[in-house]
């Protein structure tokens, strides 16, 4: 076993992981940082984010507006103290990225441009063409090269945490190129492994988004929070689930049903004109737009494609020039996969799973309940997204809380003594034995891909945009069965060098645990809020009983235990979640009552 010692280990080298590494390196030049990723950093799924990253800049905008948009968007399940911290630090982080070279799109005068985005009252989304995540990730990766104290472990697959003396003290990882194991002993560990969208069938996510870090923390007793809140992005390609960015709608794109009708006006987001208009119609929040699709499908007003029902994303009125300039990726994907030129024909789209609002429970300093373990980015639940995330808050989260995680980890590492690595080695050897047993297992006949597809289908059926108790229960039962069948896996690939079937089997284990957490969280929330909507008698928001966070606790020999934690409400009491003309009326009423 390869033995590595570092002050801080970071698992995941996407936006949050890289930002944490840079922050740690800047906080203390003497701190050694092991940055561990199962893929080269520029492959991390941050790269696929398109639309942009939020930060208040305009004179007529304010932190209060960003705060309110976020809390309302989250259907009041946000921890408002954390949201306050978040909105106050977004702009500085966006400027920091610019100072590091991020090629933000500009106005004619040379200042950074901002655009409208779903659920945001005033334009505050910084963007870099339609590849904001790509540019942010490459900026962070290239900047990280400046710091000699960041030692990268590219293509090392993390398989377990080392917990000793009640503290997280490192990780065990497989060097993919050799199949050998490495023990990285560290005084603080940051998990930045991203979300878990791949547990669903149709999703926008890359193959690597399998909830690895969530499962690792979960198995070591750290609760996962608000797992039932899974975001369906409303405009994705049927079948592959590939994303057509919200920026399409920010630039003025519209959604029409089979009759060419802008159906969102029937769902409290209207009236349709004037267009475009913030927080109205197609610029409403993602959960409401996905839910509208579900209703249109029930009414038979969607179009049928070989990969399911869809509606039209109509960008024709933008014109070919603006499309090529502002949305070049969209044009390329539509043309290659569907043979559609968006300047000539509308694009069929349907909702697909995009983001996991829930994740590893952490406090405002990104510290989990397990001392020495921190988490940032999509894998964490720090309290800013609540029941539904607003577009462009996630990329901002990576920078804001990536930085906090780096600083927090350094502070923690300074406060504890390192345990001799020989003490930790025995645990690591147990992990190695367990992982290797997967390769040699011969008793069963299950194929990983079969179990994975059954899990994904079950999650798609039971934990969809609208949920029913009986269907969620069926999913819980299916996952339990699949976890049993997991013990009967038999791999085709028995090698050690680049055995990706082995790694996929380990990922399947992570996914099953995360899927179970999602399904059990969902069935226990007997209300509808944000992205968790039910049609079985619990179809309204119930603040009296459920204005609280779901916490799900791992149990090795059975279904997880679910309990609840409080939501921090400071100055925005739960109100009516309104968009379109309804929101405008409420605003006018509030302004009138303030004036009076």
């Amino acid at each position, binding site marked *: 076993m390869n033995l590595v010692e570092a002050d801080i280990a970071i698992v995941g080298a996407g936006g949050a992981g890289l930002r944490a590494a840079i922050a740690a390196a800047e906080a203390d030049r003497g701190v050694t940082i092991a940055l561990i990723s199962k893929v080269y950093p520029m492959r991390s799924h941050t790269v696929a984010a398109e639309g942009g990253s939020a930060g208040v800049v305009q004179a007529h905008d304010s932190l209060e507006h960003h705060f309110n948009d976020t809390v309302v968007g989250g259907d009041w399940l946000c921890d408002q103290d954390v949201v306050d911290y978040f909105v106050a630090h977004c702009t500085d982080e966006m400027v920091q990225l610019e100072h590091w070279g991020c090629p933000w799109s500009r106005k004619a005068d040379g200042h950074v441009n901002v655009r409208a985005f779903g659920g945001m009252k005033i334009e505050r989304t910084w963007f870099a063409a339609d590849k904001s995540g790509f540019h942010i990730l490459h900026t962070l990766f290239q900047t990280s090269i400046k710091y000699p104290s960041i030692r990268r472990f590219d293509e090392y697959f993390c398989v377990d945490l080392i917990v000793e003396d009640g503290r997280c003290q490192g990780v065990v990882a497989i060097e993919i*190129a*050799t199949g*050998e194991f490495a023990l990285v002993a560290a005084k603080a560990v940051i998990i930045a492994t991203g979300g878990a969208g791949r547990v669903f069938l149709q999703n926008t996510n890359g193959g690597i988004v399998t909830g690895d870090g969530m499962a690792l923390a979960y198995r070591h007793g750290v609760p996962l929070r608000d797992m039932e809140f899974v975001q369906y992005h409303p405009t994705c390609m049927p079948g592959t689930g590939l994303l057509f960015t919200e920026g399409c709608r920010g630039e003025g794109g519209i959604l029409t049903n089979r009759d060419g009708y802008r159906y969102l006006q029937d769902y409290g987001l209207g009236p349709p004109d004037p267009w475009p208009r913030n927080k109205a119609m197609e610029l409403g929040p993602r959960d409401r737009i996905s839910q509208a699709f579900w209703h249109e499908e029930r009414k038979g007003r969607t179009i049928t494609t070989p990969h399911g029902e869809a509606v039209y994303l109509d960008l024709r009125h933008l014109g070919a020039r603006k499309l090529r300039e502002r949305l070049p990726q969209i044009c390329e994907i539509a043309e290659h996969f569907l043979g559609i030129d968006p300047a000539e024909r509308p694009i069929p789209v349907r909702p697909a799973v995009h983001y996991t609002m829930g994740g590893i429970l952490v406090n405002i300093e990104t510290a989990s309940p397990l001392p020495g373990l921190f988490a940032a980015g999509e894998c964490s639940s720090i309290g800013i997204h609540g029941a539904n995330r607003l577009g462009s808050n996630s990329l901002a989260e990576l920078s804001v809380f990536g930085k906090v995680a780096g600083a927090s980890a350094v502070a923690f590492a300074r406060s504890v003594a390192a345990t001799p690595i020989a003490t930790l080695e025995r645990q690591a050897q147990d992990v190695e034995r367990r992982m290797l047993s997967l390769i040699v297992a011969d008793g069963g006949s299950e194929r990983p891909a079969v179990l994975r597809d059954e899990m994904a289908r079950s999650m798609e059926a039971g934990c969809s945009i609208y949920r029913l108790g009986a269907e969620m229960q069926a999913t819980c039962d299916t996952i339990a069965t699949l976890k049993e069948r997991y013990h009967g896996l038999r791999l085709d690939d028995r090698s*050690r*060098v680049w055995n990706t079937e082995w790694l996929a089997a380990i990922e399947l284990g992570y996914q099953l645990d995360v899927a179970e957490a999602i399904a059990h969280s969902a069935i226990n929330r007997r209300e509808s809020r944000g992205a968790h909507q039910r049609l079985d008698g619990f179809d309204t928001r119930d603040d009296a009983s459920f204005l609280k966070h779901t916490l799900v606790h791992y149990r090795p020999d059975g279904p997880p235990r679910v309990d609840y934690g409080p939501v921090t409400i400071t100055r925005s009491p739960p109100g009516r979640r309104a968009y379109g003309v309804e929101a405008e009326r409420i605003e006018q009423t509030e302004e009138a009552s303030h004036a009076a």
Partner: protein
Amino acid sequence: MTGPRPYLRPAKTAWWAHPPYLAYTLREATGVAVAGYALVLLAGLINLASGEEAYDAWLNFLKSPWSLALHLLFLIAMIGHVWTWFQIMPKTMPRLVIGGRVLPQNWITAAGLAVAMAAFVIILLVAEWMQP
């Protein structure tokens, strides 16, 4: 534990079977034709300096069928050389940004080819005009 053993494939030698490499090699070969024609011009110069008899012999050679065939090949190679020259020329220049837009490379190529055409026509006219 046998460990990793990366395998480096031997270089493929059949460059002519791969259209982009074939096109590249032909392009480079037109440079040989340019050098060849420079030698022809040099030979003409030497013959001119060697007196009237030598120069007349040289002119007769130029009119011969072998020479005409050779010059036809030179002409084809030259045209190819000019064409590919201006295709590659914009690659050697930094991006020209005019009014917020990058100047398309094929405009630069087109401008270069236009100048080449104009020069060709002008030389023909001058040669015609200089005929005794």
